[in-house]
């Protein structure tokens, strides 16, 4: 706490007399912001609200949006259920090979989506190394909705795992120890102390993973294919329209930006209240 105060004090001292360096920082942020915002603005500038609404009349577009919501929700549920305890273990225990496990878990982050799709195909496809056993169990993933979910989980899970691991690692160990001293078991400590304390970080990871899943294109196309109502998610529908109907593609893009933006914002807001609660406690 004392250390935190000192850092804050130093920051204040620096901001009182902004030198050339601060101006340079502000310049860099302005450039970054302008560059990142321009394409998004362009999508909306090229789409009239009427076109945006009429794109929703296109049954192929609504099918794609509904499919995107369905598959990303299932994928996120799986990521949360498996990823939260896995991240907790990674954050709170040291074991041999831990840093290797951390690297492996984050590996999909740096894989091009096309590589992810080919990898999934080589693993779970009919001709893949696990294709035979899966076929024996009558599980078919390629060109099926389940395959979309598999692709989404693969590409989006590392975003959540990474954030969740960092969030759990930042929880004050003394809280966890206190909880155990007071006779709450490991599972109880995890559920009642660690998760609430790490909530803002977990939600941030959730938002990132969800956004990544909503935008997933390459792995889905290669592994699950593209068919309306079954595997054609919104990004695939946008690409499909892009070839023939740029206006429709732009309008659907705008809708996807709104949905993703709303998601990010709502999770941010939920995380915000969590932080305030945490501060009050």
């Amino acid at each position: 706490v004392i250390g935190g105060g000192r850092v804050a004090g130093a920051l204040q001292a620096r901001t009182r007399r902004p030198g050339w360096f601060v101006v340079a920082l502000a310049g860099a942020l302005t450039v970054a912001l302008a560059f990142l915002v321009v394409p998004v603005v362009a999508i909306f500038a090229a789409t009239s609200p009427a076109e945006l609404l009429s794109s929703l009349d296109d049954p192929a577009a609504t099918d794609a949006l509904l499919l995107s919501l369905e598959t990303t929700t299932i994928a996120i549920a799986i990521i949360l259920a498996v990823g939260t305890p896995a991240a907790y273990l990674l954050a709170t225990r040291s074991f041999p090979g831990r840093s290797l496990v951390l690297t492996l878990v984050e590996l999909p982050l740096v894989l091009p989506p096309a590589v992810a799709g080919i990898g999934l195909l080589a693993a779970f496809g009919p001709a893949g190394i696990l294709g035979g056993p899966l076929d024996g169990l009558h599980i078919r993933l390629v060109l099926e909705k389940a395959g979309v979910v598999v692709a989404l989980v693969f590409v989006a899970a590392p975003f959540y795992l990474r954030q969740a691991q960092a969030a759990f690692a930042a929880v004050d160990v003394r809280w966890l120890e206190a909880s155990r001293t007071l006779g709450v078991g490991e599972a109880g400590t995890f559920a009642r102390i660690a998760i609430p304390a790490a909530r803002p970080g977990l939600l941030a990871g959730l938002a990132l993973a969800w956004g990544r899943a909503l935008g997933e294109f390459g792995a889905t196309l290669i592994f699950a294919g593209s068919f309306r109502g079954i595997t054609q998610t919104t990004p695939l529908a946008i690409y499909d329209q892009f070839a023939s109907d740029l206006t429709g593609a732009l309008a659907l893009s705008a809708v996807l930006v709104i949905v993703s933006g709303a998601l990010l914002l709502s999770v941010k807001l939920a995380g915000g209240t969590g932080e305030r609660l945490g501060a009050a406690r």
Partner: protein
Amino acid sequence: VVFTDNRLVIAVPAASSRIRSLADLARPGIRIAMGSDGVPVGSYTRKVLSRLPAAQRRAILDNVRSEEPDVGGVIAKVTQKAVDAGFVYATDVAATSGKAAQVAVPDNLQPRVSYAVAVVKGTRHAEQASAFVEGLLSGRGRQELRNAGFLPPGR
């Protein structure tokens, strides 16, 4: 000027014997990939299907499991055995080095698949451009196209 032609074929996984003719595509449980509506291979495929009796066309379309944004996606789904068959160009099957085999689409259903090339009017490199076009129509370019399975233009 049209410099080469191609044919639409049904690609099937090399070891598969489920599809022996176009008619087999209408059988229930068959999985098919084709190009999506907006891409050339997709519109050629639809042209072929439009020449079939309505019931057969519907049965085939009911078996479509993926509409790919390019022909590469279709042939990849075939070589990975994700589908039983896919509509591609004859040259795409030839390029899989044996991972896919082709089932012919009958002549009376074949669309005209041609590739054309032109010299841009008023270009500063008209001479080189004409030489390139000449090369495609004769000599080595022509030979390379034949080797890859393309057909002579205007059959």
